[in-house]
C-alpha cells in the first residue's frame, strides 16, 4: 500500500463522512446501491462511517460520471483506458468515465461485451483514494492500479486493510481473520482485452 505525498487523511473530527451523487447524472437506486456496498467494504475495517446525502454541494465526497474534458484537467478518454479518478482527502471528488460499458448487476465475467467494466470494483478502488490510499504493487490488492474488463475484484485484502488502518485505525468489530491475504472474490474471463 502507499499514501499520497504528505499522507493526507480526513481529520479526526471527520469520522462520519457523507457522500452525494451529481444530480445531473440522475442515477437510479440500483446504481447508488453499488456505491453503498463499496463504501461499506471500507467502513467494515475502519472507524469511518459513510452516509449518502441529497445535498451534493455540502457532501464530503461527490460522485459524478463525466465524459471527455470535464474541467479538472484530467479528461476521460472514452471506452477503456482510464476508467475513473479520485482526489485525496479532503477534496472528495470522485469522477467516473461515462463512456464505459459499466456493469451494475449480473455476472460481469460472463458478459459478451469485451469492454464491460464492473462498477463496484472500480468504486471500491477509487474510495481508497478518497480516503488517502495511493496505488499498491500487490496485484490482488484493491489499490492495484489496473483492472481488466470483465473482471470483478471487490474484496479488500490484507495490504489494503493494513494501509487504511494506518490512517484511521481499526473498526473494533473488525475480524482480521476474515480478510484474505489475497483476494478470494476475483473473477475474470480470459483476460482480454
Amino acid at each position, binding site marked *: 500500500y502507499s499514501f499520497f505525498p504528505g499522507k493526507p487523511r480526513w481529520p479526526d473530527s471527520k469520522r462520519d463522512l457523507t457522500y452525494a451523487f451529481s444530480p445531473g447524472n440522475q442515477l437510479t437506486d440500483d446504481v447508488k446501491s453499488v456505491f453503498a456496498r463499496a463504501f461499506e467494504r471500507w467502513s467494515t475495517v475502519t472507524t469511518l462511517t459513510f452516509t449518502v446525502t441529497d445535498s451534493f454541494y455540502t457532501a464530503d465526497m461527490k460522485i459524478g460520471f463525466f465524459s471527455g474534458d470535464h474541467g*479538472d484537467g484530467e479528461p476521460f478518454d472514452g471506452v477503456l483506458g482510464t*476508467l475513473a479518478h479520485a*482526489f485525496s482527502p479532503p*477534496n472528495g471528488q470522485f469522477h467516473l468515465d461515462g463512456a464505459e460499458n459499466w456493469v451494475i448487476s449480473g455476472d460481469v465475467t460472463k458478459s459478451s461485451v469485451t469492454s464491460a467494466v464492473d462498477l463496484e470494483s472500480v468504486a471500491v478502488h477509487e474510495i481508497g483514494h478518497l480516503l488517502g490510499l495511493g496505488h499498491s504493487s500487490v496485484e490482488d490488492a484493491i489499490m492495484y492500479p489496473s483492472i481488466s474488463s470483465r473482471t470483478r475484484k471487490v474484496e479488500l485484502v490484507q495490504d489494503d486493510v493494513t494501509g487504511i488502518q494506518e490512517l484511521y485505525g481499526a473498526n473494533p468489530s473488525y475480524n482480521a481473520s476474515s480478510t484474505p491475504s489475497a483476494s478470494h472474490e476475483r473473477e475474470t474471463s480470459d483476460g482480454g482485452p
Partner: protein
Amino acid sequence: HFFEPNVPTPIPSWLNETQINETLSEWDAFRNLSGCHAGDRVDGLSKLKKYFQYFGYISNSSSSSFNFTDDFDDALKSALETYQKNFNLDVTGELDERTVQQIVRPRCGVPDIVNGSTTMNSGKYNSSSSTRFHSVSH
C-alpha cells in the same frame, strides 16, 4: 483547489448488451510497439511517452516533455524500468510482450508516482520529479 464540475454531466447508460459500444481503447495502438528497445525510432513512441508522463513516470518539468519524439531514449527506458518494478514485471527496460499487455490494461487515472515519489515497488523515484499533483488537499 476545490473543483466543482461546471460542465454538463451525462446520464450514463448501463450496459445493455443489445446496445454496446465496443470501440477499442486508444491504448490498443501500443500493442504495435511490442519489441521496441533503446535506440529504436518508431511511430507511436511519443504517445507512449505521454502515457508515462500522465502516470508520473516521466517528469513534467523536463524540457522535452511538451514535444516528445518517437525516439526510444533514456527517459523512456528509465520510465519503463520504474513501471516494470511497480507492476512486478521483469525489469528489461524494453517493450516486451508482458509489459505491453500491462500497459494497455484499463486502469485508474490517478498517477502511480505523485510529486516524484512512489511507495509502490520502485520506491523513491529518482528524477527531477514529476510535478503532476493529482491529490489536492487544500
